[in-house]
């Protein structure tokens, strides 16, 4: 049995040690404020040892695999220099200012009119065969399984790789009322004709990008593997730009897995063990999961209830996808009892299952909750408030008018004290109600907030660049609706409605992405380091106000899970990321070898 003191590294209190220093100075976000150059150069080379790949810094775990401790050490900076660090980070950005729009070098930036046109001179057309985007007769949704009465968890041992997104076929898409992922094209905000109109032009963008990706893969000596590449090029500015312009949907599952370093976390056979141990498991989490299964993507063709054509049908008639979703969520609730199940994870797991097989979807969920958005789904949801607090800080720096507007909401009703005073950061302790509208932006990682295609592009960048990208996206959304929010006489209700509904119209993902990477805007220089510093700051502010006193009031719920597990499952290793293969490094070598081979073959012939 799991002894009480043998905590998993992701227990909130341990995780938050990362922030647990007496740093009370407010982190400075990258902006156009004057920077003191001298201070910058003197300190903290270490802090920026990942300068080239800032988004990978948190993954640089040492051999004991304890990612948390490692992060802790990289953030354990003496208070006296914390200010300089903040400033130093700003310099870091100014150094990077040659990198701009979509991460392209200045001289490589495409014209405003045609941003996704060939800035790459390497496309010679010959390399790219018709693999992938010339497509004839595949059905729109080939992997739908209508009947599956077997809900025995072991049934999934037959690994399925059916989760293959159909290749772009405009005829199919335009005729169908559904998109490539099985979602209804129309909703309360977007009509089918809006969708079709957008799709006609956007699919051209997708086809262009796919060609470029094909070339990139081949140029790196990697295999397209019948339009299902498993390995991707090593990190580079070019790759970053490609990801920012969208990974081909057919490849997304593999690409996410690769860029999020899934193979570092995956432990062969472990997921199957979890499922086995969850057979007949009944506890609070399982109960809540069961109630959410049919409320995950009720409109999606893979998830929606199978219509009962006769009275004999019973509950066994459950879509395969729902069964997978149940297994992934239940397995996760056992694996990570400090989180268990949190509403919104059903959407995350559901979307993963559209792109990845069950086992990998499970591990991706682990990566998302552990590495990318740690603390966010924990039982007390304090992580939500911390993330929202960071968003407030970012708004304050980048969109101050909106920030002030938000503070004013509710001010009249608050008789307590001057709680919204800006100088004492009380707004971090009592977040303006408006901020809670945006809590779901993070909790469900924009699923249901942005249209699906836009959401997927945000996910591409999340896995490659970490959670700072979610803040960039949020700021860009606010920038987009700023004129409306600042209109004279707009009332609170209209503000809420605008924030809640505007993102749902953002069908054209290029619109929001162009804004995220717009030259001259400073939010696109936000790094993960900034975000981590801000989190720490918000955490400390809130902690001081005793927001944590009743943290573990509800932890009795956890008892359900713990007793049902055997010791093996609670091996400490399970909670670290011990496999330190260094996939990218390894892959780089491999691709170099492949290139050499190709060259040899070429010269031979």
């Amino acid at each position: 049995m799991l002894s009480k003191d043998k905590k998993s590294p992701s227990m909130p209190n341990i995780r938050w040690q990362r922030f647990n220093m007496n740093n009370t100075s407010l982190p400075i976000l990258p902006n156009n404020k004057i920077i003191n150059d001298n201070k910058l150069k003197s300190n903290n080379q270490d802090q920026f040892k990942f300068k080239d790949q800032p988004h990978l810094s948190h993954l640089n775990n040492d051999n004991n695999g304890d990612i948390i401790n490692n992060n802790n050490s990289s953030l354990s900076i003496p208070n006296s220099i914390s200010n300089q660090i903040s400033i130093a980070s700003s310099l870091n950005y100014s150094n990077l200012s040659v990198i701009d729009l979509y991460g392209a070098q200045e001289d490589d930036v495409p014209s405003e009119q045609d941003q996704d046109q060939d800035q790459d001179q390497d496309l010679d057309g010959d390399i790219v065969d018709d693999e992938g985007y010339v497509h004839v007769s595949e059905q729109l949704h080939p992997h739908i399984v209508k009947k599956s009465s077997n809900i025995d968890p072991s049934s999934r041992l037959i690994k399925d790789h059916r989760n293959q997104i159909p290749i772009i076929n405009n005829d199919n898409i335009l005729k169908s009322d559904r998109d490539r992922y099985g979602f209804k094209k129309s909703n309360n905000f977007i009509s089918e004709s809006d969708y079709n109109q957008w799709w006609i032009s956007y699919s051209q963008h997708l086809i262009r990008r796919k060609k470029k990706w094909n070339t990139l893969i081949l140029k790196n000596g990697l295999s397209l593997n019948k339009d299902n590449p498993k390995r991707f090029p090593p990190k580079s500015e070019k790759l970053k730009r490609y990801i920012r312009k969208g990974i081909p949907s057919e490849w997304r599952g593999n690409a996410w897995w690769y860029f999020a370093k899934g193979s570092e976390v995956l432990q062969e056979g472990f997921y199957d063990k979890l499922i086995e141990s969850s057979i007949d498991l009944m506890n609070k989490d399982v109960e809540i999961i069961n109630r959410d299964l049919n409320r995950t993507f009720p409109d999606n063709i893979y998830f929606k209830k199978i219509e009962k054509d006769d009275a004999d049908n019973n509950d066994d008639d459950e879509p395969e996808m729902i069964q997978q979703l149940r297994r992934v969520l239940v397995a996760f609730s056992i694996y990570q009892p400090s989180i268990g199940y949190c509403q919104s994870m059903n959407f995350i797991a559901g979307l993963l299952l559209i792109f990845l097989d069950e086992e990998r979807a499970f591990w991706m969920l682990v990566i998302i909750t552990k590495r990318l958005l740690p603390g966010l789904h924990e039982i007390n949801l304090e992580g939500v408030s911390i993330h929202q607090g960071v968003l407030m800080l970012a708004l304050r720096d980048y969109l101050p008018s909106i920030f002030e507007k938000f503070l004013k909401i509710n001010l009249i009703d608050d008789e307590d004290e001057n709680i919204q005073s800006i100088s004492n950061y009380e707004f971090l302790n009592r977040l303006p109600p408006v901020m809670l509208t945006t809590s779901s932006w993070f909790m469900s990682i924009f699923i249901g907030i942005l249209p699906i295609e836009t959401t997927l592009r945000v996910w591409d960048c999340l896995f490659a660049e970490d959670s700072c990208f979610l803040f960039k996206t949020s700021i860009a959304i606010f920038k987009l609706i700023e004129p409306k929010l600042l209109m004279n006489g707009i009332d609170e209700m209209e503000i809420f409605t605008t924030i809640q509904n505007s993102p749902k119209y953002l069908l054209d993902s290029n619109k929001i992405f162009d804004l995220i990477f717009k030259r001259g805007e400073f939010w696109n220089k936000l790094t993960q380091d900034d975000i981590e510093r801000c989190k720490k700051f918000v955490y400390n502010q809130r902690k001081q106000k005793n927001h944590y006193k009743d943290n573990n009031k509800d932890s009795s719920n956890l008892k359900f899970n713990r007793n049902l597990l055997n010791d093996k499952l609670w091996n400490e290793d399970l909670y670290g990321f011990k496999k330190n293969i260094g996939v990218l490094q390894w892959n780089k070598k491999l691709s170099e070898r492949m290139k050499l081979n190709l060259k040899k073959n070429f010269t031979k012939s």
Partner: protein
Amino acid sequence: MSKSNLSKYKIVFLGEQNVGKTSLITRFMYDTFDSSYAATIGIDFLSKTMYLDDKTIRLQLWDTAGQERFRSLIPSYIRDSHVAVIVYDISSKKSFDLLDKWVEDVKLERDNNVVICLIGNKNDLTNERQVSIQDGELKAKKLDAKIFLETSSKLGYNVKNLFKKIAKTLPEFEEIQKGNEEEEMIDINIENKENQESQCQC
């Protein structure tokens, strides 16, 4: 009258997961029903202008997530709500048993400055009923709820009636309410629903 001059009232919907908070609101707003709605994450916000007895008011409806852990996020929404609609599912004893803690949350933030409505939803699931109407009424008394109704979002039963009753507790309609004490009687007979709703033009 321009929209911004209307009196506005905040109504927050609370209750366990999957009791039908979203479907109740959707029925009121659009008069539609789906068998499944996507789970609400955090908070959803809707507003509706309501006409009643020659008066016009604007209602702000706050739809909340039902899972227990979301309760930590909700207080600031409750803080200035005029009405709290606390929903349970008549086919789930559990959702009924957990009502107290929701009421507790509301009273903690608003003392008694809030109208509490107790709603037993999914009234159409007669065969699966686990909570009797009498138990619901008793509970309403105990919790000091001004309004108790059983509703069915699926059939549209008592939904408009609920909002009408809510409106009548608001300051805007206080005088009218005093003159119509008999309307306080709650009619839960499904047959009467058409009559109940005929007055309401919303």
